[in-house]
């Protein structure tokens, strides 16, 4: 069947090619192939109809496509690998798609799934990312292919990664990119681009400079996006060699302080240099076009709050020009280093405005004498109402802030607890806080701009692009509540439902209070740290500690007896010290209630978290048994004093609920929830994390577990793209990890097809099976 389809497709292709050739020879246009009708031979992108072996295609490549897919990539020759890599290019990151590259430099877009089938067949075999998934390309620059056919330089051969050219910085490696080599420095940034010349020497190519053609005639150009803003660094050093930092001459009449500020601000696109206003004050201005008569100036910020030049009021065509230092406006010329020939104009002498008339200091009348409060009579007759004593504002010396102003400043500076703020003050502080954070974000972005200005790696969509689509789940309490509702059949279950509803209502009430106080961010940040398997035990212990305190005296059993008993032999390091201290305190005071506060403070500070986490002995000892870290009395896992808190990579957030259905919708990103622990806790690096999720998706796809995993009514998801899942699709992770076949296949997939990931896992002392067991456990499945 598949062969028939191939044959038909080839027939169609040949027919289209013939029609196209005929139309070209006659100059006619074809109605059934409108795109090709207008596409000449020199067009950059060929359509499917034009891409064929006899129209500039690559015979070897076509043969490779038709050859049976080997079972292992090891069976492929280097030549075949080279052909494969050369002919498929994922340009999703640039908004393009997947392209097939041909020998003559043209390419055709693989627009349909049929077009991509050969790609998909081989993609499974070769360890390169699938369409839209290119983790290893994520941080690398992009080589754009110039579509013209350049002179072939057969002597140029791509260098191996280990082949370091002379002059390369220590620690740098060579990243092969489309057959060219880019220097990747030890700090992860990209340096200059080099390629091997005919004589074996390395020749540098800058950004935007065309490379000589490769053996296949394809020419490349390394392209980094132009920086969108900030042509100059705040320090005044230009990051672009073609745009040296301007050097200004101080105009007459400008103070050193103002000139320093001018120089500083001139390098900031968001700020502007100054000019002299009509009243002689310094006025910030923006420049439109630099260096010619079109230069215009418009006031933006009046530094001294003085009057604004009325002639400039109607000038709305302002903005930052590329060369603000070449402004030849009305006041003065700011000579720049690359404009040495310009004759600075002397600014007009600043007109000193007349000193403002200082109004006389108001005479503050003496505060009226407040009569002493009259004590209320024991019997209150319906007498005349005593007017309230007027509140006399305290006299404030001129120049000093009033109490209201002081209070306002204290509120804005965060010196007043939220609980003591009025609603207006809360709103003012919240707005101020948001503005402050926005400024910090802007500063952070500016710093990132600085980093990316020289080399701007082209980010390609990683797994998140696909997984974000499916990895959303509803809030855990909703899941829990709905489960209870669904199962509430017996009186006991209804009682449980009520209790759970009450707890959820309380949670909602706490969220409301959090919002009222304007402390959502810190609260959520703190609570998110209690996560995963440790969280369930942690909160249970918190509750039981409270119960112990409530019941009076039993709490000592919690602190002194229960926790060590439950944590047992896993106790070690700080935890044992903590428990010992509690024991000592218990013996000294004998008052249970005092232990709740230190207990919770201990939990908050992480001691309790680690205590509980390290108490999850079985999982941890299983996971860490291959790499015991030593320590006192810890069995397979004994945390060292410095790292005694278990890096609970499998403590995926809300794992107690992930065993339930996961539904698309607003909520947490489940991809992050599934993998963040692995990465954040150092169990896997970033690529390993993505590879793990990729392997998971790959296993679901290739081993036909999509219908086990996903649910949307009675719809079948077999063959449905991950990007096309309907909203409301439910992912059943518990079902998947409960399925021994899937677990087996998943294990095999990682071991066979993801050797780097397997090595990454092994480096942490686990085998893949244990690793997956831990992940399954985090989804509430014990295997």
């Amino acid at each position, binding site marked *: 069947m598949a062969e028939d389809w191939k044959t038909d497709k080839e027939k169609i292709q040949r027919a289209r090619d013939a029609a196209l050739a005929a139309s070209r020879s006659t100059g006619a246009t074809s109605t059934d192939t409108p795109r090709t009708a207008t596409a000449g031979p020199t067009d950059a992108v060929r359509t499917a109809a034009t891409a064929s072996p006899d129209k500039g295609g690559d015979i070897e490549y076509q043969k490779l496509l038709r050859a049976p897919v080997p079972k292992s990539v090891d069976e492929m020759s280097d030549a075949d690998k080279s052909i494969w890599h050369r002919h498929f290019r994922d340009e999703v990151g640039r908004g393009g798609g997947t392209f097939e590259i041909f020998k003559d430099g043209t390419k055709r877009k693989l627009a349909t799934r049929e077009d991509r089938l050969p790609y998909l067949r081989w993609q499974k075999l070769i360890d390169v990312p699938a369409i839209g998934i290119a983790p290893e390309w994520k941080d690398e620059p992009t080589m754009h292919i110039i579509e013209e056919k350049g002179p072939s330089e057969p002597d140029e051969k791509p260098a191996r990664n280990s082949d370091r050219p002379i002059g390369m910085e220590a620690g740098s490696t060579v990243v092969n990119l489309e057959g060219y080599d880019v220097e990747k420095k030890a700090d992860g940034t990209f340096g200059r681009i080099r390629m091997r010349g005919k004589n074996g020497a390395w020749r540098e190519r800058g950004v935007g400079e065309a490379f000589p053609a490769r053996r296949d005639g394809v020419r490349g150009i390394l392209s980094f996006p132009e920086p969108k803003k900030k042509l100059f660094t705040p320090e005044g050093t230009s990051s672009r060699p073609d745009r040296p930092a301007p050097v200004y001459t101080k105009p007459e009449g400008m103070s050193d302080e103002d000139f320093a500020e001018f120089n500083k601000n001139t390098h900031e696109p968001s700020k502007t240099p100054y000019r002299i206003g009509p009243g002689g004050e310094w006025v910030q201005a923006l420049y439109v076009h630099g260096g010619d008569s079109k230069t215009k100036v418009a006031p933006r910020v009046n530094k001294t709050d003085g009057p604004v030049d009325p002639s400039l009021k109607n000038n709305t065509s302002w903005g930052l020009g590329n060369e603000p230092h070449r402004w030849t406006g009305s006041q003065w010329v700011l000579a720049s280093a690359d404009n040495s020939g310009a004759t600075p104009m002397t600014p007009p002498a600043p007109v000193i405005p007349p000193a403002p008339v200082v109004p006389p200091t108001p005479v503050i009348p003496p505060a009226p004498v407040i009569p002493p409060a009259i004590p209320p009579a024991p019997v209150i007759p319906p007498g005349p109402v005593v007017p309230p004593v007027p509140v006399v504002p305290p006299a404030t010396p001129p120049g000093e802030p009033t109490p209201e102003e002081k209070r306002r400043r204290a509120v804005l*500076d*965060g010196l007043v*607890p*939220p*609980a003591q703020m009025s609603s207006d003050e809360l709103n003012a502080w919240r707005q101020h806080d948001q503005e402050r954070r926005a400024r910090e974000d802007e500063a952070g972005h500016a710093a990132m701009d600085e980093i990316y200005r020289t080399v701007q790696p082209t980010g390609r969509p990683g797994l998140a692009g696909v997984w974000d689509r499916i990895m959303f789940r509803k809030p855990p*309490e909703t899941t829990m509540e709905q489960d209870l509702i669904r199962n509430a059949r017996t009186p006991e*279950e209804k*009682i*449980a439902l*009520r*209790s*759970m*509803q*009450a*707890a959820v*209502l309380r*949670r909602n009430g*706490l969220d409301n*209070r959090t919002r009222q106080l304007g*402390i959502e961010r*810190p*609260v959520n940040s*703190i*609570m998110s740290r209690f996560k995963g*398997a440790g969280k*369930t*035990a*942690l*909160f*249970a212990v*918190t*509750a*039981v500690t*409270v*119960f112990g*305190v*409530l*019941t009076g005296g*039993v709490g000592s*059993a*919690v602190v002194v007896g*229960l926790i060590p008993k*439950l944590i047992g032999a896993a106790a070690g390091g*700080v935890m044992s010290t903590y428990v010992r201290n509690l024991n000592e305190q218990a013996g000294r005071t004998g008052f249970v*209630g*005092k232990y*709740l506060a*230190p207990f*919770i*403070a201990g939990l*908050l*500070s*992480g001691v309790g978290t680690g205590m509980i986490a390290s*108490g*999850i002995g*079985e*999982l941890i000892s299983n996971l860490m048994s291959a790499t015991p870290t030593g320590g006192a009395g810890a069995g397979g896992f004994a945390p060292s004093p410095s790292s005694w*808190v278990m890096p609970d990579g499998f403590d995926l957030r809300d794992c*107690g609920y992930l065993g339930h259905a996961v539904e698309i919708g607003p909520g947490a990103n489940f991809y992050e929830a599934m993998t963040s622990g692995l990465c954040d806790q150092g169990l896997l690096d970033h690529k390993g994390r993505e590879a793990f999720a990729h392997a998971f998706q790959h296993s679901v796809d290739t081993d036909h577990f999509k219908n086990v995993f996903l649910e949307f009514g009675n719809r079948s998801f077999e063959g449905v793209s991950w990007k096309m899942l309907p909203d409301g699709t439910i992912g059943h992770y518990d079902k998947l990890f409960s399925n021994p076949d899937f677990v087996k296949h998943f294990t095999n997939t990682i071991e066979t097809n993801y050797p780097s990931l397997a090595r990454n896992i092994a480096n942490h002392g686990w085998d893949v099976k244990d690793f997956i067991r831990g992940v399954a456990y985090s989804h509430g499945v*014990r295997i």
Partner: protein
Amino acid sequence: MKTNDHALIEDILNEEFMQKALAECGLQNSKLADQEAFAIQLGENIMRRIVIEILAELPPIEHPVFESLVGSGKALEMNALIAKYIPNSAEFIHRHAIDEYEATKTEIHKLEQGVA
């Protein structure tokens, strides 16, 4: 296969004082899983309330400090920070923890009356 965290929670639930608390909430005959879910949610609420109330008492300028201490393992510094702004911190935490438990019980009774 039972893992230790579930064994831990089971042991907690089987303790005499926990049984007493569950009885107060009417959950003494409920399934272990329901008891566990309730205890966990209640514990989270208690912890959340304590965090909220502590943050409400701390000036915002100290919030980042508090955040940084959470999970840092510096229990003494955490205690010192709390004690700086909340003089009787033990009583404070104790009171809010118990209030949260009592508030939950009140909610249960409200729902009970509404359902019955």
